[in-house]
Structure formats: structure tokens, C-alpha cells
């Protein structure tokens, strides 16, 4: 964290001013790299489009059941910037609405797997060398014995194909990676002098875990979270590509690509633009995440 730097006199008195101070310093470091700022702009754009989809999408009614055979399979034009699909729906509008579920999925998956993974990882790391560590980490080993995409695909396959179930599938295959990263951080941090000092002065286990160890894992965890929004979107799209996820007529990026692939290469826009949209999301959150990593790492100025 950046609290190590200079502290102005006002910041010593007022904790709010101190937070503001460290935020300012983080922002300064973050904004040094124009790629990070570009990432931030992309992330904000995605969130903006998702939240205000009904107002910004050119044809909001095209996000659901809508059929207009007169204007089907139209190439990109000024009326339809990204063309229309096989039953005449505006692809740009559908992409904007698809961002909603993609982001919702990423948020739900991370909101469950990050606390759970962090908690198990912290515990296993702090109690490393005991049976607690053995149990938690061996269970984790089993979960990460196959790549998350395959585990998520197979779990989603056995459930009913809905958005909710695809979220469950991705969450189940995602948390162990947070356990793993927190575990490796916590098991080395617990040997630091400040943790031993806290133990000697009789601090409670809860205090040590959450106030001494966790804050020192937070920069790695935050970076991973920012990157993971993109990756969860990607895996979610992979699930909906196979047909496991949000069901038509609701838009999902993967489903749109799968539909478009059947029309390749003549009606290329149906598949290409949703694919580019996924690329945009992953790229945005990657640039943003790398920026956060640079801004929060203490060594680099």
C-alpha cells in the first residue's frame, strides 16, 4: 500500500484526509501510464453502457423477442452500425444489453468466490503445517486439477441451462484460485516480524488474520479481481457459446457468436462484432488491472 510515503501534517490528524492522500498518490501512479488510463476509460464505458442500456442502445426493443424479417442480415450501415442478425435485430443494441449479464455474472462470481477463497486461503496460510492447511489445500488441489473452463463447462452441463446456473458453475471453479493465491501470500507473511509482534502482544487470531495479514495481501487480490472480470466474462461467453447460459431470445455474447458462425463468411458481421465486444471487455479489464498492479506495488515509483 502507499501509506508508507510522506504524510502531511493534516493527514496525521484526520484519517479521511489520509485516505484521500493515499488515493491521490495511487491515482498519480496509475495515471502515469496512458495504457492504464485507457483501460479505465474502457471499463467505465462498459459499465456505463451496461447500466444505461435501455437509454443508449439505438433499438432497445431488439434485446428481447423481436422479429423484423424485412431488415434481416443487413451489413453494417448508418441505421445499424454493426448490421442486423438473421431475424432483423440490431447487433449493436444486443451487444450493449449482453454487457449487462456479462458484468452481472462477473460481479456475482467474484462477490462469492473472492471472500470464500480469501477466507480459506488466509486460514490455510496462517495455520500452515497443521491439519487445517492439509484439508483446505488438498481439497483446493482437487478443484484445480483440471482447468476452470472445463470444470465450469461440465458443471453447467449437468445443471439446467440458465444464467443463474452458469454463474454457479463458474463460481465453483473460480474460488480455488483465490484460495491458492491468498494461501501462498499468507503463509509467507505470517513469518514477518510485525505478525510475530502482534502475536506476542496478545492480539486475537481474528485481528491478526484480518488486520495484519489480509491488508498485505490486498494489492495482489485487487489486481487479480480487476483482471478476473475480463476472464469471467470470457468463460461466461464460452458457456453461452455452447448453449449453457442465458437462453435466447435474451442476448448473450457467446450465443450471438455461435449464431453468427453458421453464417460465416458471407454474413461476417453477425459473429465478428460480438467477438470484438468480448475482446474489448477482456482488453479493458486487463489494462485496468495491470494499471492497478503498477499503482499498488510499493517498489516502483
Amino acid at each position, binding site marked *: 500500500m502507499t501509506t508508507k510515503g510522506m504524510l502531511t501534517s493534516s493527514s496525521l490528524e484526520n484519517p479521511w484526509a489520509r485516505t484521500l492522500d493515499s488515493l491521490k498518490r495511487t491515482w498519480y501512479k496509475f495515471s502515469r501510464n496512458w495504457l492504464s488510463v485507457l483501460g479505465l476509460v474502457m471499463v467505465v464505458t462498459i459499465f456505463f453502457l451496461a447500466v444505461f442500456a435501455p437509454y443508449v442502445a439505438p433499438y432497445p426493443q431488439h434485446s428481447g423477442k423481436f422479429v423484423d424479417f424485412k431488415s434481416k442480415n443487413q451489413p453494417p450501415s448508418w441505421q445499424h452500425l454493426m448490421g442486423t442478425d438473421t431475424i432483423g435485430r440490431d447487433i449493436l443494441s444486443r451487444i450493449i444489453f449482453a454487457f449487462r449479464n456479462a458484468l452481472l455474472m462477473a460481479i456475482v462470481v467474484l462477490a462469492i468466490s473472492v471472500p470464500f477463497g480469501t477466507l480459506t486461503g488466509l486460514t490455510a496460510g496462517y495455520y500452515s503445517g497443521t491439519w487445517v492447511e492439509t484439508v483446505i489445500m488438498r481439497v483446493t488441489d482437487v478443484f484445480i486439477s483440471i482447468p476452470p473452463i472445463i470444470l465450469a463447462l461440465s458443471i453447467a452441463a449437468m445443471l439446467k441451462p440458465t444464467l443463474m446456473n452458469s454463474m454457479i458453475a463458474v463460481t465453483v471453479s473460480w474460488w480455488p484460485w483465490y484460495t491458492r493465491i491468498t494461501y501462498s501470500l499468507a503463509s509467507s507473511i505470517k513469518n514477518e516480524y510485525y505478525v510475530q509482534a502482534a502475536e506476542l502482544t496478545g492480539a486475537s487470531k481474528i485481528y491478526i488474520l484480518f488486520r495484519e495479514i489480509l491488508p498485505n495481501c490486498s494489492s495482489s487480490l485487487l489486481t487479480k479481481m480487476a483482471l478476473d472480470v*475480463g476472464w469471467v466474462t470470457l468463460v461466461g461467453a*464460452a458457456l453461452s457459446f455452447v448453449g449453457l447460459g442465458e437462453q435466447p431470445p435474451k442476448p448473450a455474447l457467446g450465443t450471438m457468436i455461435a449464431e453468427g458462425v453458421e453464417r460465416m463468411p458471407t454474413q461476417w458481421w453477425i459473429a465478428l462484432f460480438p467477438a470484438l465486444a468480448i475482446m474489448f471487455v477482456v482488453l479493458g479489464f486487463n489494462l485496468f488491472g495491470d494499471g492497478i498492479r503498477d499503482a499498488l506495488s510499493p517498489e516502483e515509483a
Partner: protein
Amino acid sequence: MRLGPFVLRRLAISIFVLFGLSILIFLIARIVPGDPARMALGPRAPVDVVERLRQQMHLDRPLLEQYGLWLWEVAHGNLGDSLVTRRPVKQDIREFFPATLELVGLTAIFIIVGGISLGVISARYANTWFDNVVRLFSYLGIVTPAFAWAVILMLLFGFVWHIFPTYGRLTEGVIPPVTITGMYTIDSLLNGRFDLFWDAFMHLILPAIALALPPMSQAARITRSSMADNQNKDCIASMIAYGVPNRVVTGKYLLKPSLISPITVMALDIAATFGYAFMVEKIFGFPGLARYGIQVMLNKDVNAIVGVVMVLGVVFITLNIVVDIIVAYLDPRIRLLGRNV
């Protein structure tokens, strides 16, 4: 070299993990709401037929007994019958797996050769225009998923340049080679049919590139950064000062320790390729495990899903053991002390 005990221990751990994986996937298959037998037969099947299938699948027994029976069957090489195709899952997998294996194999070659060589050259010429171009493209490569690459490549080669075929495993109308391994490229070579080999190989190129680009870029980036880290070490500087030829320094003393992290990452990525192969195969109309996998997934064919996952689990765990052996060979600390650094 004391690789023997090291490999043995790794093998023991892997068997444990495989057991865990089987329990996990079996549990998920059984605790899922809904009756697998009913789902397989459809909502209109008569009750007694469903009941018979339930008994056949041992669904009426307690969970632990079910697992025991299932494990017994698996130990005898029997993964159960597919609930959709009505054939043994093993037979289905044997039919569809070689095509995917062939594709993933070529992908792995692209990832390893492309990733490492790009990374090494990039590190060798660090901060030159070449390095910058590679870094930019590796970033783009990482963030673009395999199926997006598939769409882009298909567009370029199906629409603009007709160099590579964009559909299927062989040109339409061509009779596939006599089945020996099930992999067309190898079978045709064994049959001495070089024309067939060329045809099958050309059909593999585009899907393999689409699958390889993201992990290859990742490998290039990691290789470059770990090479760059090691380049600044004192031991390397002293080696250069002693007049050891550049080729030896790079090829032997720099490359060996720098390959450890890229190799570990590449193993994970190559295994994940099986997952992304589902999509890429569908886009290129490549009849591999994907078509089968998607079909069984959408039909809730529990036995087949469990079978496919177990096969992929074995592949991945084997891959990991191979990686551990390579890493142990590269890093004497692991080999001699048996410790993960």
C-alpha cells in the same frame, strides 16, 4: 540425478488428486437437482422405463454405494453407457478423442515453439523495435479469446485469402485413411499417403493457430520477463566478463532457469485448450470431441460428461507430471531437495 523417488512421489500425489476429482465430479453429477434417468429419457417416457434405467444406473442405492459401484466399473475400464447414443462412453470417446488430440497436439507445438522463441528473441533484443512489436502483439494475443481468433482467421482465410481450408478435417469427398490411431495425420503417414497427410495437416492449421495464439502470447510474455530478470544477475555478467560465448550464456545458463515459469504456465494453458477446443472445433466444423461434448452436455448425459471430465483429468494430471519432471531437470533445488520453490 535422483529423479526416481521424486517421480514416484509425484505419481502418488496425482493418484490422490485423481481420486478427489472422481469424487467431486461424481458428487456434482448426483446432487444436481433432477433425476438423470428422467432427463435422459425425456418427460414423456413411461414411469416403469425410467425406473428400470434408475436401477440400471444404481440410482436407487445410497450415494456411497453408488460411488463404490461406479469406481469398480471405472477401475475395470468401463465408463458406463451414454444415455443418449446408447453406446459405451469409452467407445464414443475413443472415436472422437483422436481428432481433438491431434488438434491440441499441433496447438501445443505452436505454443511451445512460438512462445519460447518469441520470448527469447524479445528478451535478447529487449527494448528495441522488435521487442516492442512482440510485446504489443502478445498483449493483443492474450486478451483475444481463441474463439474470437477463430472468427477473425476464418474471415481472413475464407473470404480474403484462400490459402488454408476453413472447414472440416479433410477436403469434402476425400476418403479418410485406414484407422490406426484415429489421428488422420499420423494414420496417413503410416499408410504412406503423403497427399492425405498434407490435406489433413492443412485442415489443422487454422484451428490450431486460433487455439495457440492466446497461450502462445502468454508464454512469450512470461519467457521474456523471466529472461529479462535473469539477464541482470551477477552470475551472467561475470560469465560474459570471463568471455564465455554469447550463445552458451543464452542457451545454457540463461535459458534453463528462465524456462521454469513459462513451462508451468504452458502446461495449464495446453490443458485448458481442450476446453476452448469445444468452441474452435464448432466454428471450423471440425468433428472432434467438441461436437460430442456439446451434444452430451445439452442432453444432460451424465455418464458421458463424467467420462469426458475424467479423461481430461487424466490428460491434465499426466501433463503436470511431465512438467514436474522437466522442471526438476531444470532446477536442481527441486530435484535434490524435493521442494517446490
